[in-house]
């Protein structure tokens, strides 16, 4: 890379430190061990809590022995610390003119070479325990593979800032991106009024309609299964007595009490979800300034995050099934390559609990020219339903024939499974809608809830048109649109529309000189 005079000027102040860094492999500050301890605990919790759950059952069923518990706890903590220290000792990093080099791994050693021009996201975080030492965590994410993500924990904040501006500077030689310096710290100084503020009422709505409770219930199911094996200790004589009393009242009482119990469980789950929603999104504020979006939220742990508007690949307006009842939407700003750890890292930028006018306001603010009043979305062809019915009925028919040969003709009753499935297909068909509007493409899908993706056409990477033999006969096609790692598809649209989409999209991409990332 050519060293222009400006370049020297820009990097000059930190030239000494940079050149020192380039010479040799460096270790992180020892304080980073704390970071590794927390990271190890987090990882263990994420990956093995299902395995640990039975352990908890064993402890509970064997009776709670404080000495045994303390001993086990100490052993675990020591093990985690040893792992963290080893991770720290084996973690080294170095920098060349054009890339980052990271060596890590205790057993499986790996060396990562992350080129500056492939880094698409830089984030500097300062956990509480790093603050007194003036240290920070520098997170680098590349556009390519999700495994090429680097956390440099425990490097001086000054160096982190230097690296950040240096990398951004080196990138801007390649792509014209407006760089807004030190945006990480001046959030509270943003004088502009927030574009969105969420009050408690909305957050409660969000808590109720959030799909997370179903995810939570899904996660809880395997744990409950583990409990199943040694469930006997749970059934105390009192419970058994109550059950027998209810049973004596007759089947109606049994069913009724089961429903009530189910409602109680559901209610509890919802309460948890509402509490989580308030904890996370309390005092939610969304700002917009200098080509960036800022968000601020959280009750106990204050979160501040920002993202460059030009990095947004698409926005997803999402409404869950329950959200439909309370009229609540979320908007998610999708960036590149975050699909893998979207739920873990919280880097996905979510605007919770919007009503219809709220999502329309934000989407038209971000994408100027979007006018929801004039967007006319089209439905897909109904052959989609027929095809789904056919695809599901063939294996069902095969099973039915097979079973009928073994037993009797009643086996064909299996085909009645199609009765509940067909309305589901019809509903899914109804949710698919698509439209092009000015510079933007709008694609909607869903089942009971819906999810609408809106994106400028120039963000698209490639476009694919697929035709099955049946689609060819009916002049239909499926289009798949690829936006930086995420593929959106629209099945069973007229081939004429598919061609039109391809021609317009290609023209928009090829005429655009806007950077897509």
């Amino acid at each position, binding site marked *: 890379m050519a060293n222009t005079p400006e370049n020297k000027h820009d990097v000059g102040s930190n030239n000494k430190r940079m050149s020192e860094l380039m010479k040799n492999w460096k270790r992180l500050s020892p304080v980073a061990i704390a970071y590794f301890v927390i990271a190890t605990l987090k990882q263990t919790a994420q990956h093995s809590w299902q395995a640990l759950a039975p352990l908890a059952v064993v402890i509970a069923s064997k009776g709670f022995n404080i000495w045994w518990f303390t001993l086990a706890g100490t052993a675990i903590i020591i093990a985690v610390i040893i792992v963290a220290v080893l991770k720290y000792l084996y973690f080294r990093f170095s920098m060349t003119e054009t890339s980052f080099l990271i060596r890590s791994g205790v057993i499986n050693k790996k060396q990562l070479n992350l080129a500056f021009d492939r880094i698409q996201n830089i984030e500097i975080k300062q956990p509480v325990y790093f603050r007194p030492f003036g240290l920070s965590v520098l997170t680098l994410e590349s*556009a*390519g*593979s999700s495994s090429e993500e680097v956390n440099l924990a425990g490097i001086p904040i000054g160096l982190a800032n230097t690296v950040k501006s240096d990398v951004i500077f080196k990138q801007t030689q390649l792509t014209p991106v407006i760089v807004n310096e030190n945006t990480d710290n001046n959030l509270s100084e943003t004088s502009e009024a927030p574009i969105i503020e969420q009050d408690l009422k909305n957050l409660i709505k969000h808590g109720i309609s959030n799909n997370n409770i179903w995810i939570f219930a899904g996660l809880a199911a395997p744990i409950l299964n583990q409990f199943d094996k040694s469930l006997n200790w749970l059934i105390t004589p009192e419970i058994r007595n109550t059950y027998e009393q209810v049973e004596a009242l007759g089947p109606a009482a049994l069913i009724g009490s089961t429903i009530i119990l189910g409602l109680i469980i559901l209610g509890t789950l919802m309460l948890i979800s509402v509490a989580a929603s308030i904890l996370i999104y309390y005092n939610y504020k969304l700002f917009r300034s200098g080509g960036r979006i800022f968000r601020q939220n959280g009750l106990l742990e204050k979160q501040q995050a920002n993202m460059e508007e030009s990095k947004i690949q698409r926005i997803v307006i999402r409404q869950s099934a329950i959200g439909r009842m309370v009229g609540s939407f979320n908007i998610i700003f999708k960036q*590149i390559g975050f699909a893998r750890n979207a739920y873990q890292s919280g880097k996905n930028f979510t605007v919770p609990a919007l009503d219809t006018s709220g999502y329309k306001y934000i989407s038209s603010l971000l994408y*100027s*020219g979007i006018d929801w009043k004039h967007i006319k979305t089209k439905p897909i062809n109904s052959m989609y339903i027929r095809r789904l019915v056919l695809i599901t009925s063939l294996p069902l028919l095969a099973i039915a024939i097979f079973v009928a040969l073994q037993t009797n003709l009643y086996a064909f009753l299996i085909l009645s499974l199609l009765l509940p499935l067909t309305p589901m297909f019809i509903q899914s068909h109804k949710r698919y809608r698509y439209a*092009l*509007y*000015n*510079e933007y493409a709008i694609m909607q899908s869903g089942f009971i809830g819906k999810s609408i993706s809106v994106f400028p056409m*120039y963000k*698209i*990477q*490639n*476009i*694919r*048109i*697929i*035709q*099955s*033999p049946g689609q*060819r006969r009916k002049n239909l096609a499926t289009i798949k649109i*690829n936006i*930086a*790692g995420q*593929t959106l598809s629209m099945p069973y649209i007229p081939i004429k529309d598919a*061609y*039109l989409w*391809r*021609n*317009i999209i*290609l*023209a*928009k*991409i*090829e*005429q*655009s*000189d*806007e950077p*897509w*990332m």
Partner: protein
Amino acid sequence: MSEQQIDFTNDDVTLDSLPKAEDVIMKSLSPSYPTILIIVTLLMTAIPVIAITILSLLDAPVLIIHYTSWFYIGAAVFLIIGYFWSHLDAKHRGYAIREQDILYKSGVIWRNVIAVPFNRLQHAELHRGPLERLFKLSSLRLFTAGGLKADMTIPALPEIDAIRIREFVLASASKSA
């Protein structure tokens, strides 16, 4: 939004004058491509056939040697279908290079056409497998930021063509970037 894009309204006139990707004439792959596919099919069938023959000659105590004749029939059918399929498959592949993008079609049953605009191209690589080397062919792999693997792989291009296409593609990509 830049000046250029404002030209692009949803006007019918403009839409009709758009270059039509569906009208381009696709260039087919090297005529040796079916041969390569047939060789691959042969190798794929040869390995289990040889294994089974050896097992039955040795009178190995495995269940499958009781069905060797069925197995040979199956392999023969597979080869015959493979022979015709290879030609069909090759017939339905093709590519077209336009000024601003490249199109590639594939698929006998599910017809698939992918379009990659040059200014979304991340990198391009030439790949030569042992069979392709034998026929002096290369595959061209094009990567956008779409996914982890190549978005478009054009197999069996004559080496000179492949190099020329890659150079043209990369030159167009850097020009428009």
